[in-house]
């Protein structure tokens, strides 16, 4: 257990070799307590490997994993790595009963509460093998969150889900993080979804963390950039700043640029009230995916 309580997991210089292949190369990052920590990387970058190491499924060849809690206590780590680990021949409730026994928990009302929390309260005796992929994922998450773990590790939890399923899982994870205070480490190929969830990101390339960044910092370096074309730029800038945007004027192109998200109607109304006439508005967005592509250089297949 760490003396420092502000992190939940600290990866210290971790390497992992599979024979001659090095999957992780001196990887280091820190997962803050209470965060939703997104791992971003291409296929084979090492996301699953580091998640397997954190969850105890594998040992690092070199380096250490520091836990900001007692990781020896049963159930302090919950994980859904690769596929949901559930008995397909048993019902959702039976699966949870098994997980409760596995963790040495008392089988009480919390079991049904967990099922309801993930939206599987009314599945009855239906076997998990007959569940849709989304239901299986939710059951997997329910199993992982039994005993209120300190950290939940989710590897591609929305992979293969339909839009409805993605929204359900996203809402569920936000609820888990906000209501139960569970720190979540999550990887996903769907970066737009990840950007809606995560509070922190680690970009992984070839077994190394090449960048750690908070969501708000990401917004600053990327996010929405709007170009305003007007004849009176010096009057428009204070209007935009007053609306919380970071506005700047480029004298060469004579364009006012502003970073951040806004309601266009409000901006136009405010500008009009200030006597500013906006001729044209052009927006371009630097999202997580664009940022990632820029970072690793080249086309992303993450």
């Amino acid at each position, binding site marked *: 257990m760490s003396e420092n309580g502000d992190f939940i997991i600290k990866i210290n210089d971790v390497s992992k070799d599979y024979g001659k292949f090095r999957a992780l190369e001196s990887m280091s990052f820190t997962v803050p307590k209470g965060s939703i920590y997104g791992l971003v990387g291409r296929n084979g970058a090492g996301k699953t490997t580091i998640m397997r190491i954190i*969850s*105890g*499924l594998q040992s690092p060849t070199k380096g250490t994993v520091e836990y900001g809690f007692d990781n*020896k206590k049963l159930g302090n780590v919950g*994980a859904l790595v690769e596929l949901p*680990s*559930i008995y397909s021949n048993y019902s959702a409730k039976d699966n949870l009963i*098994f997980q409760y*026994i*596995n963790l040495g928990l008392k089988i009480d009302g919390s079991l049904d509460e967990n099922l309801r929390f993930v939206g599987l309260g009314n599945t009855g005796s239906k076997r998990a093998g007959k569940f849709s992929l989304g239901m299986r994922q939710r059951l997997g998450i329910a199993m992982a969150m039994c005993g209120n773990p300190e950290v939940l590790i989710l590897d591609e939890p929305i992979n293969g889900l339909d839009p409805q399923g993605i929204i359900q899982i996203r809402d569920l994870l936000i609820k888990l993080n906000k209501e139960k205070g569970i720190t979540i480490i999550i990887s996903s190929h769907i970066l737009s979804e990840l950007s809606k969830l995560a509070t922190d990101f680690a970009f992984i390339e070839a077994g190394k963390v090449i960048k750690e960044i908070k969501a708000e910092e990401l917004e600053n370096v990327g996010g929405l950039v709007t170009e305003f074309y007007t004849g009176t730029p010096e009057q428009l800038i204070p209007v935009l700043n007053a609306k919380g945007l970071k506005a700047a004027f480029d004298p060469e192109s004579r364009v006012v640029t502003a970073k951040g998200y806004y309601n266009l109607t409000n901006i136009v109304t405010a500008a009009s009230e200030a006597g500013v006439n906006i001729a044209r508005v052009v927006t371009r967005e630097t999202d997580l995916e664009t940022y990632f592509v820029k970072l690793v250089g080249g086309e992303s297949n993450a």
Partner: protein
Amino acid sequence: MLKLLAFEFRRISKSIFFWIIAAISFIWPVITAGFYRLILTLDLFSDEIQFVPLSVTQDQRLYYTWIISVAFMTSLSIFVALFTCLHVGRDYTDGIVRNKIIAGHSRTAIYFSYVITQMCAHVVLSLIYILSAFLGLTITGIGVDTNHGEMLARLGVAIVVFLVMSVTFTALSAIFRRRAAPVILCILIAYVSNIASSVFGLYSTPPQAVQDYINIRNTKYELMVRDEMIDEKTVKDYEAAFGKNKLLTFGWQVFYPAYLITPIGFESDYGASGVTSLIGGGLEYPKELNYAQNIFFKDESQFDIWYHTKVFTEIELDPEADPETYEIPDPSEALYKYYMTVDNFKRVDSMHMSFSKLNLIYLGKSLAWIVVIGGWGYLIFRKKNLF
């Protein structure tokens, strides 16, 4: 560990397959007892097939009690192989073994929880089988005789021997990520063990017992030469044709070491001679495994053995005969019978072994194999990236 044991016991208790095997364990011996009852009461030699009133001797009762109840070793082996492979294998295919590790259980605890719970399940199935055999024997009227508990001790040893298979199946199931490989391997092992248990019995004679037999036989040849029944050349021919190396065949050389170090010969040792020795008064060695008898009965196709066996079996045995003061009453009478007496064999330690000692040997061998196979599986399970 206790949590994992609770987990696995619950899984087993909820397994439909387990209860199907339990039902088979219950029904099978009852049907077998019914079958024997039919044979015992069916008169096939009348003009018309008819049933006769059941009349069972104590020896028969003892015999049937043993062979019906110990049959769990062969009858259940393939079922438990399948059960273990599918049960443990499911933890891999459904990823539950990962859940256990993520939850914080050690690999040691996970592995041994499988081993312990599977062993317990197999003991339960064996006990169901044995008790059901007793029930079947009782309701068919044949009756149960446990020979004052001696049979129960042997059945206890049989269960421990059976557990070697149990551990083998569990270890194999735990070290393969896919289910097909252990299923095929375990069924093959169960099948081969069943066959081997019969084959090994043919090659269980210790080499010293054969040497002892040859010594006794040669003494007899000397007497026959003295009385001019055969000449020296014939003796040399016999000795060349039926020497130690000829009696201990290639098959013996292959199977005897395996018989010695594994418990696979159990059913054979406790089968033919073992069962008959349980039958009071049936043999001279009621509490011993008689290797001399093995030499006679299992290799009798050879002329030399047949020749002596014939003498041995056709004449009345005389336990009082003393070879030291031997005198041939009448050379034309049964050939030099007194040198083949049971007493003669009884003087040679290597010719027989008490069943109480044999029980201990099989217990020791089985426990050693349980440790060896279980430990081997554990080492692989602990190191290999299986999850």
